[in-house]
C-alpha cells in the first residue's frame, strides 16, 4: 500500500485493522506483489502470553518495535501512529514538520499547533468545505523545491472533535471510535477520493496558520513575524537537527513564501469562512 513517500506492506491478524483498512483506505491501490517495498510493518501480539492474558498488540517495523505494546482494541490507532513514525523518522529527503496541509488553487495551507489545539478538527472542517487534504499530521517539505508532498492518510480525531466532525454531514466517513487510548477516544476520518487519487501532486505553501481552539472564544486573527514563526516551527520539526543547514534553508524558504497568521476561534463556523476569505484575498 502507498504510505506518503513510501510503500509499506502491512501484515496483521487483527480484525480491527482489517476493518479500519477496508473503511478508511478503500480508495488506495494495492501495490503488486514483487514490487519494491520500503518498509514491512506488522501489528501482532508481542508474545504468546499476551495473545491470551489481557491481550496486547505491538507495532513492528522490519521486526523492531519502536513503541510499547497497547491493549488489543487499540490496534488500528496503533497502526496509524506507527505509520506516522515510519514516515517522520525516515523521510529525510524532506523537512518533516508536525502540521496539517491542505491545498486550493494549487497553493498549500499549513496548520501547525501543539496537540489539543484543534488542528485536526479544523483540517477536517476545511476538507469538508472543499480543500484538498495533503496531510493531517506531517508536512513533508521537499528540500530542493520547497513544495509540500502529500501524505493523504486518514485524519485522526480525538474526543469531542469526533462528534463535531461527524455532524458536518453525509460525505464524512469515520472509522470505529476507539475509547480509552492515552489520547482519550480516537477515531479516524476517511480521506476524500480526490486526495487519494492526487497523492502524487505536491503544492507550494502560501499560508501558514497557527490555530488555537478556545472554548466559547471569538475569532481573532493576528499576523506573526517571520523570526517568531521560525522558532516555533523548529519546535514542530521532526528532523531539524538531523538535516542541519539544509533544514534551515528549507524552513527559511517556506516562511519567505507564506503569509503567517495566528488564529484563535471558538467554533468551526467562525474559522473556516475566515480562512476562506484570507486565502481568497491573497489569491487575487
Amino acid at each position, binding site marked *: 500500500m502507498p504510505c506518503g513517500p513510501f*510503500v509499506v506492506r502491512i501484515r496483521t491478524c487483527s480484525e480491527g485493522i482489517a476493518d479500519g483498512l477496508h473503511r478508511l483506505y478503500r480508495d488506495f491501490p494495492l501495490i503488486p506483489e514483487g514490487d*519494491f517495498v520500503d518498509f514491512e510493518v506488522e501489528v501482532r501480539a508481542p508474545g504468546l502470553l499476551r495473545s491470551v492474558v489481557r491481550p496486547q498488540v505491538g507495532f513492528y517495523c522490519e*521486526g*523492531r518495535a519502536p513503541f510499547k505494546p497497547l491493549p488489543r482494541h487499540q490496534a488500528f490507532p496503533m497502526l496509524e501512529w506507527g505509520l506516522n513514525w515510519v514516515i517522520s523518522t525516515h523521510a529525510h529527503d524532506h523537512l518533516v514538520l508536525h502540521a496539517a496541509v491542505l491545498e486550493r488553487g494549487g497553493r498549500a495551507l499549513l496548520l501547525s499547533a501543539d496537540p489539543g489545539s484543534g488542528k485536526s478538527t479544523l483540517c477536517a472542517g476545511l476538507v469538508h468545505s472543499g480543500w484538498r487534504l495533503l496531510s493531517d499530521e506531517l508536512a513533508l517539505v521537499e528540500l530542493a523545491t520547497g513544495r509540500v508532498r502529500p501524505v493523504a492518510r486518514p485524519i485522526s480525531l480525538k474526543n469531542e472533535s469526533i462528534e463535531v466532525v461527524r455532524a458536518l454531514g453525509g460525505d464524512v466517513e469515520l472509522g470505529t471510535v476507539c475509547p480509552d487510548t492515552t489520547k482519550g477516544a480516537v477515531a479516524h476520518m476517511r480521506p476524500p477520493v480526490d486526495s487519494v487519487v492526487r497523492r502524487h501532486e505536491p503544492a507550494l505553501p502560501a499560508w501558514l496558520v497557527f490555530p488555537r481552539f478556545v472554548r466559547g472564544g471569538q475569532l481573532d486573527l493576528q499576523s506573526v513575524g517571520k523570526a517568531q514563526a521560525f522558532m516555533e516551527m523548529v519546535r514542530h520539526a521532526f528532523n531539524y537537527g538531523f538535516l*542541519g543547514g539544509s533544514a534551515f534553508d528549507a524552513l527559511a524558504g517556506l516562511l519567505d513564501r507564506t503569509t503567517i497568521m495566528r488564529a484563535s476561534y471558538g467554533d468551526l463556523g467562525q474559522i473556516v469562512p475566515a480562512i476562506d476569505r484570507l486565502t481568497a484575498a491573497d489569491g487575487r
Partner: protein
Amino acid sequence: MKRGLRNEGGLIAAVLADPARAHDLDAAGWSMLIGQARNADMLGQLHFRLASGGALGCAPQAARRHLDLAWELSCRHRDAVRWEVFHIATALRKLDLPVVLLKGAAYCLGALPAAEGRVFNDVDIMVPHAALTAVEYALLDAGWIPQVANDYDQRYYRRWMHEIPPLEHKSRGTVLDVHHTIVPPTSGVVPDAGELLRRALPIEGEGWQELAGFRVLAPEDMILHSAAHLFFNEFHKGLRDLFDLHRLLEHFGCRDDFWALLRGRAEETGLSQPLADAVVHCERVFRTPLPEAERARARASLPEGVVGAMRGWMLRRALLPDHPSCSTTDVSLARWMAFVRSHWLRMPPGLLAIHLLHKAVRAKE
C-alpha cells in the same frame, strides 16, 4: 526451505562481500537487502560498497533513495564526530593527558577506510586509569552529565567495568564513554593499559592545536580491541562490527610485518582467541584477503569437537543481521545463547549471579 531462508539471511553480507551480486536482485530482493542493511545500521557502508564495486547504478530508484540518504547521513556524522572530539579536547586540554580515541571516532579521525559510510552512536575515549577522576570532573564541568542515575549501575560500572558510566552532553545530547582499558577486568583478560597508551599513535593531518594530545591505538591494538569488543559481547551490532574488522584487516593486512606483530600483541594481551574468531569469521563472511599461514593458524587455534561445533553454530547465526528475514527459531536460540555467553565471559560466576539477581529484582519493580 530453511536452508533457502538462511541464505537470504546473509544477503547483506553476500552483497558487501561481492557487490556484483546486486545485479541479480529483483525488486523483492532489493527490499530485503535495504531492510537488512537498515537494521544492521549498515546502509551507508552498503552505499559505499556498491559504489566502489560499480553496482550502485543497478539499484532501483526507490532503493537508491535509502542508500543516498544514508550516505549523506554518514557524511554529516563524520563532521559531527570531529566537532564532538573538538569539544572533548577543549574540555580536557588543561589536564595535559594522553587521550586515545577508540572504535568509530578513531576510524573517523584516523581517516581509516572503516569510517566510510559508517554512522556513530557515541564517542569512546580511553585515558590513564589514574587520571579517571580528573577527566570525569573536567567533563562534568564542561556540560556532560551521567546517563546512569541508579546507584547499583553506577557502582557496577565503577567497580567492575572497563569504563565509567556513559556521559551525555546536556545541550548536544551526544554520548561519551570514558574507558581506562579495552576489556572488562572481570573477564580475566587484563591487557597492560599502560602499554596500549605507550603504543598509541598521534592523529595526523587534522591541523587542530586542541588535538595535540589525542591518539588512536596502534593498528594491531585497534584490531584486538575491535575483536574483543565483538566477541566478548552480545552481537547487538555484530555484522557491522565484523565489517569494521574486515576493513581494518584489509587496510593494515598488506603491510609486511603486520601479521607477525598482530599475533605477538594478541599473545601479550591475552586476546588470541577473539583475534582467531575475527580472522575466521571475516574471511567466511566478507572473504577478507589473508595470508594462507594466518588462515590455517586461526582455524587451528579455535576449539574443536562438540564445543567447537557449537561455537561455530552459534556465531554463524549471531552474526546475521537482526531482521525478520533471518529470524528463524534457531537464530533466536543462537542469539539468546550469545547473550548468555557474553555475560559468562565478562564476569566470574559469583559476580554474575549477584548481577543477575539485581537485574531481576529491579525488573519486577
